[in-house]
């Protein structure tokens, strides 16, 4: 069973941005449809409401338990999904019509789960996000743990949130099998994408 929460975008959406997110989401879904042994578990594209978040998290937990996955694996996947969704909800930028377009896709391959998430980001925020990402690029999990502790030691929120702790948590749970990318939408907006893989072994 696949849970697809794709909803029709309201007419007020910027059509170009809508299409941009939708095509990225669709291409990931297509990849899973064509890949032998792979299974699409969940896809959501559009404005992400709190109700959507609750549905997604509830479904992920129930589905992985039903599939008999071990507790440790369920926790890792659940953690990445929580952090990805909160990144979208808290840090995602609105488009010019006040809509926070995004996508999240979760799939299972033979030996791993993959989570893709995308959200709009203001172009002037890209540098800061890249700085957070650069702290963990190429690091082994033990070294990422040190980066995590250093960030956590600041022990407070700034106007930028938890200082990148969410992205570092995603890296930790995926043993740093996580990729980040930016795609330009227009002069003011980028699409921030992440793809995390959790080994099922």
């Amino acid at each position, binding site marked *: 069973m696949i849970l697809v929460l794709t909803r029709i975008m309201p007419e007020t959406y910027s059509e170009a941005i809508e299409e941009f997110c939708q095509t990225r989401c669709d291409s990931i879904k297509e990849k899973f449809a064509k890949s032998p042994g792979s299974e699409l578990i969940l896809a959501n594209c559009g404005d992400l409401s*709190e109700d959507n*978040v*609750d549905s997604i998290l509830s479904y992920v937990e129930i589905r992985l338990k039903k599939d008999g996955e071990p*507790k*440790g694996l369920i*926790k*890792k996947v*659940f*953690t990445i999904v*929580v*952090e990805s969704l*909160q990144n979208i*909800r*808290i840090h995602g930028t609105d488009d010019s019509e006040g809509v926070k377009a995004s996508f999240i896709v979760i799939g299972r391959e033979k030996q791993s789960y993959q989570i893709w998430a995308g959200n709009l980001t203001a172009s002037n925020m890209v540098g800061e996000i890249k700085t957070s990402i650069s702290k963990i690029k190429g690091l082994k999990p033990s070294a990422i*743990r040190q980066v*995590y*502790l250093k960030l*956590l*030691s600041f*022990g*407070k*929120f700034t106007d930028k*949130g*938890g200082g990148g*702790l*969410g992205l*570092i*948590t995603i890296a930790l749970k995926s043993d740093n099998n996580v990729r980040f990318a930016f795609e330009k939408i227009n002069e003011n907006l980028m699409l921030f994408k992440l793809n995390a893989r959790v080994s099922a072994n």
Partner: protein
Amino acid sequence: MNRLFLIEGKNTPKISFDPDTGNFLVIGKSYPESTERFYKVPLQWLKKYCEEGDPKNITVDLNFEFISSASVICVLQLLKQMGQLRAKGFNIKVKWHLQDDDDDIKVTGESLESLCGGLVFEYVPF
């Protein structure tokens, strides 16, 4: 001071701080979207207790089924407030509860313990 009691929500833990018994408890899942806003209440309560309370024995039971990265920041802030109580003469015992096979929660506890300024955690398996 009156006891602080917050009932468990769909993504927020139950919180019970009882100044009479000295039993302080946080139990459940913690991944609210507005994490800072949720933990503001217990943090403010603790700050006030630090100003007004008389030193005594406090047992802090922390039992998280799941805790988001933002919640870890807030729990660290709670623990630092406990550190302030300890500096005032309170005897603080922290119990970090975890299931035997939950490495994730264990590592989170160890991370917090290393950063909360001298509070020693007792790890309690169940």
